[in-house]
């Protein structure tokens, strides 16, 4: 793959459930001559008393993410920062966010952050898995261990009132950039803010193979069936209405996409095992 296109302009945020917003933008890439997009998406949850930002946006999207936050928060403070993990596409704007929002605190599994942001450790709050972080107005967030992940201490999040599961690197897939001509400057947002069921073409395993290969190096080495069981247990327990990946369109058909994603894992695994 090679990134031959500049970053497309991030589309405006979408409210995927009341007071739950889909932010950030897409990377554009070319796969066998065809342009594709892949999201790098943070999410904002605004309760009556407090707000949470899940992931931080891609460093190159900072200007857009910063403006998106300003307009959605509308003068309120951002209270909690919860990157799913410390990798740059997920936590790369953490330093800028800590500077911009003076009351914001990093909360959750704090692994490694004391080495990376030593000047901010007084703003770190360790938070155990599955203890509700209450935001007011019935909104509450639970941290969960992430079954699909790269870094070992990755966390998923679940907002209980709207039943949204935030899955970081899980459920990742690419999408076509726009309905209009490709590469047109200032192209319309096209598919970037569509839910999975609204996409003109349903996501297939092929849409998930590329990002699975690139983002999860273990996928070719390990049969993901054991991990699938963990995902199913989580889905049965929480019954999310929406699954919000960092790298894919927000999913309103979690069970269909679970099938697509694990079909992609199987393709990646079998391709490697079969190659000489």
């Amino acid at each position, binding site marked *: 793959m090679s990134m031959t296109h500049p970053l497309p302009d991030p589309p405006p945020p979408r409210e995927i459930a009341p007071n739950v917003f889909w932010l950030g933008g897409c990377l554009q890439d070319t796969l066998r001559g065809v342009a594709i997009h892949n999201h790098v998406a943070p999410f904002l949850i605004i309760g009556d008393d407090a707000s949470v930002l899940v992931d931080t946006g891609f460093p190159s999207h900072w200007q857009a993410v910063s403006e998106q936050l300003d307009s959605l928060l509308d003068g309120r403070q951002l209270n909690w920062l919860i990157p799913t993990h410390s990798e*740059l596409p997920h936590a790369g704007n953490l330093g800028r966010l800590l500077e911009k929002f003076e009351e914001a605190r990093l909360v959750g599994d704090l692994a*490694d952050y004391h*080495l990376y*942001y030593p000047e901010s450790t007084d703003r770190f709050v360790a938070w155990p898995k599955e203890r509700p972080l209450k935001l007011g107005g019935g909104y509450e967030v639970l941290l969960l261990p992430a079954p699909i992940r790269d870094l*070992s201490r990755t966390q998923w999040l679940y907002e209980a009132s709207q039943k949204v599961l935030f899955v970081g690197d899980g459920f990742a897939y690419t999408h076509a950039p726009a309905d209009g001509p490709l590469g047109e400057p200032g192209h319309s947002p096209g598919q970037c803010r569509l839910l999975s069921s609204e996409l003109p073409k349903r996501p297939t395993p092929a849409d998930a193979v590329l990002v699975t290969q690139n983002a999860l190096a273990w996928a070719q080495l390990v049969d993901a069936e054991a991990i699938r069981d963990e995902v199913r247990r989580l889905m049965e327990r929480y019954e999310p209405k929406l699954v919000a990946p960092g790298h894919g369109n927000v999913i309103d058909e979690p069970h269909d996409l679970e099938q697509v994603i694990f079909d992609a894992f199987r393709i990646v695994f079998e391709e490697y095992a079969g190659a000489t």
Partner: protein
Amino acid sequence: MTGATGRRRGGRFTDAGRGSQPVELVPGSLYAFGGTVTMDSRISWISPADSGYQPLNGYLIKEGSNALLIDTGVALHRKDVLEQLSMLIDDQTKPRVLFTRAELDATGNLIAIAARFGVEVVNAGGNVNPFDAFEEVGQVGRIAASFRVERVASGESLSIGDGRAIEVIRPPLRMLNTTWAYDPRTKTLFTSDSFGHTFLEQDRYAPVLTAERDATDYAQVRRHTCARYWWLQHAVSPRLATEMTKLYDRYDIERIAPTHGCVLEGAELVRKHQRWLNAVLHGETGESG
């Protein structure tokens, strides 16, 4: 395992009472810099079963007036890293930087080093890949800085200058997009987040382990490797260990220089730890080789 008492002791910057010192691995040619961190459950890549101090390293390769840094250490060690590099690099030298990964244990002092010494080129392995975010490393701090990011494909050499070059390697074992490197002049293999299973008993940056000082056992290699590479708890394709062996066989290796943990000094110690790591990749749970 206090390290640093090997045959190269004479080359270290011994000056009792001074602050942290860089460690000379090969006189005039190869240095380690960095500091130690307390081992506990706040660090993701080690098992909390051991207590002690783990060195986190960057490396400096010097050739004439040229300097290449391989990784830059963590922000927690920023002051020490800048001090140590000031002892090794003069103001006229603009170091090049090769990153083994785009994570903050490797890139954490890039902006500070660039501000002090000037950095124009940052190298990363492989092709441009938006998923690994190497093109973003200049933007992560509170101050954005821009560098020319040049990719070096696996198997290609990266010139340091004055006829010296290192080979860039894509290792079969990796969590994120990862680059290893081999320096034929000093027979050193730079292994990023692999071989990060050793540590120190004392809180002093003395990150060299020799065969005679090595008290590592197989269980230690396994628990720390599996802390980083969590998916090793599942059955892993046997092709992984086979490809690692092929990689080792291509190079004459006398020293392993990881980003986490001690430098493994000497061919005998290198081979022992390579066998252990391969046993972990094979899923062996008990004592081995």
